[in-house]
């Protein structure tokens, strides 16, 4: 069993992407052997009001609800975001995706604290995207720096009941907060932006498999990349299962 904790659907604003609609994406999952995927709408990145993006997602994936797990894009820096959050939860979203760098707030800001409180109340997983793609390739009129991750530990410490996944995080950023990750069981990283030789193996040695989840960042990235990273790693069966699905399943059960 494999659960992809970092996928999107919909319209990516800067380039045409194949497999970004539900039917095609499920076919891609079938080819790659991915059982389920947590999906959020790309449109949530740049829309001011994210509700239409989330509405689209929930409707579009309805025929594939056994495979696609809806995550809502939420901007806690937008007026009346609580309504968007509530509607997303009512619509079946079991997680929310945050894009602090696109929505102009930092992890230490009060708006995030408010959102975390709501996530706690509704048993919703919070995934935070540190970036969406390589800063060197950004559209020259839309250059967005990565999220500073240093406050992630403080947020996780304050809300131990909420599972937090740091998405699109690079190896050096993980190492910078490795102590926090090791000590906070509700703080996870996913592997889609992990690089270097033997990256997954090294990461397991550094922070333990209990803090790592499988993520592909598909369809923006080739789904095969994260799978090959796992193939490259020699892991115990227990660690492999934890990363591929057991850690993610634990949140879903809690939700």
């Amino acid at each position, binding site marked *: 069993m494999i659960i992809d904790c970092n996928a999107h659907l919909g319209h990516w604003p800067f380039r045409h992407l194949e497999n970004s609609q539900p039917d095609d994406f499920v076919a891609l999952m079938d080819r790659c052997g991915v059982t389920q995927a947590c999906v959020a709408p790309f449109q949530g990145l740049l829309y001011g009001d994210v509700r239409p993006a989330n509405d689209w997602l929930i409707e579009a994936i309805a025929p594939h609800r056994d495979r696609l797990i809806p995550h809502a894009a939420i901007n806690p820096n937008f007026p009346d975001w609580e309504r968007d959050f509530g509607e997303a939860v009512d619509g079946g979203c079991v997680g929310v995706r945050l894009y602090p760098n696109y929505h102009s707030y930092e992890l230490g800001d009060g708006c995030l604290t408010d959102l975390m409180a709501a996530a706690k109340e509704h048993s919703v997983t919070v995934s935070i995207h540190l970036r969406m793609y390589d800063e060197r390739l950004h559209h020259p009129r839309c250059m967005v720096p990565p999220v500073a991750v240093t406050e992630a530990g403080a947020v996780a410490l304050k809300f131990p009941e909420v599972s937090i996944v740091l998405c699109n995080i690079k190896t050096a950023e993980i190492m910078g907060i490795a102590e926090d990750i090791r000590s906070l069981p509700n703080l996870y990283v996913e592997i889609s932006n992990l690089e270097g030789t033997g990256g997954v193996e090294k990461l397991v040695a550094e922070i333990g498999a209990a803090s790592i989840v499988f993520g592909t960042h598909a369809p923006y990235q080739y789904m095969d990349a994260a799978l*090959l990273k796992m193939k490259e790693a020699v892991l115990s069966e227990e660690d492999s299962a934890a990363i591929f699905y057991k850690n993610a399943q634990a949140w879903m059960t809690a939700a």
Partner: protein
Amino acid sequence: MIVDCHVHLHGNGETPAANVDFRLKYADRLGIDLLVCSLGESLRRQPTAQELELDNAWGMEAIKHCPQRIIGLVYASPNHVDKSLQLMERYIANGPMKGLKMWVCRRCNDPNCDPIVEYATELDVPIQQHTWIKSTGNMPTESTPADLVELARRHPAAQFVMAHSGGNWECGIRTVSHQPNIAVDVCGGDPEAGQTEYAVAFLGAQRVLYGSDASGRSFASQLAKVIGAEIPDSDRRMILGDNAVRMFKL
């Protein structure tokens, strides 16, 4: 046969042999047969002539450790033309290295590159040239795909491999698409879906090579660009190995 045409051997051990062993351990798990390697024990962007000697000696030691799987490229610098020509004679004309690596010593349209490219043409070996287009700004001495087109037009008999497909691969691939003596490797960026399909569409599969840019990048993430591409298997075979075998005469 899978040939990784873009590998560096640093950062994973005190010796070339230790770095080779480390890389091959992971290459084996992914079925990668040959590693085409360049640069030295560290990434020296502006090596002195003496450092060029050291870096190429490092590469030579790596080849000696595992000659059946490590293929070497001479690290050449247009800042040190005489030394570069000397190294090419020592390591390519007399063997066993199979081509040239030019990185960021100067932009590759600089006239100082000409004697190096002329000798590579005489030796009939390809030149792997780093290129990037960064919206955050290139280094002053970092080449763009347009720079490489200038160089390639001056040397139509030379064979170039444009490293990283120019970074911004849509722009890079389109820039070189009409210059037939430029092939591209797919390495060095995130595994963005569509890159390999785009290269095949505009260049043809015979001008596309798999590379990883290990150790900075993962063998796995970069291999996925080819394994996961929606292209015919015959194209995939060319990109994974056949093109490298042909160009580097392996």
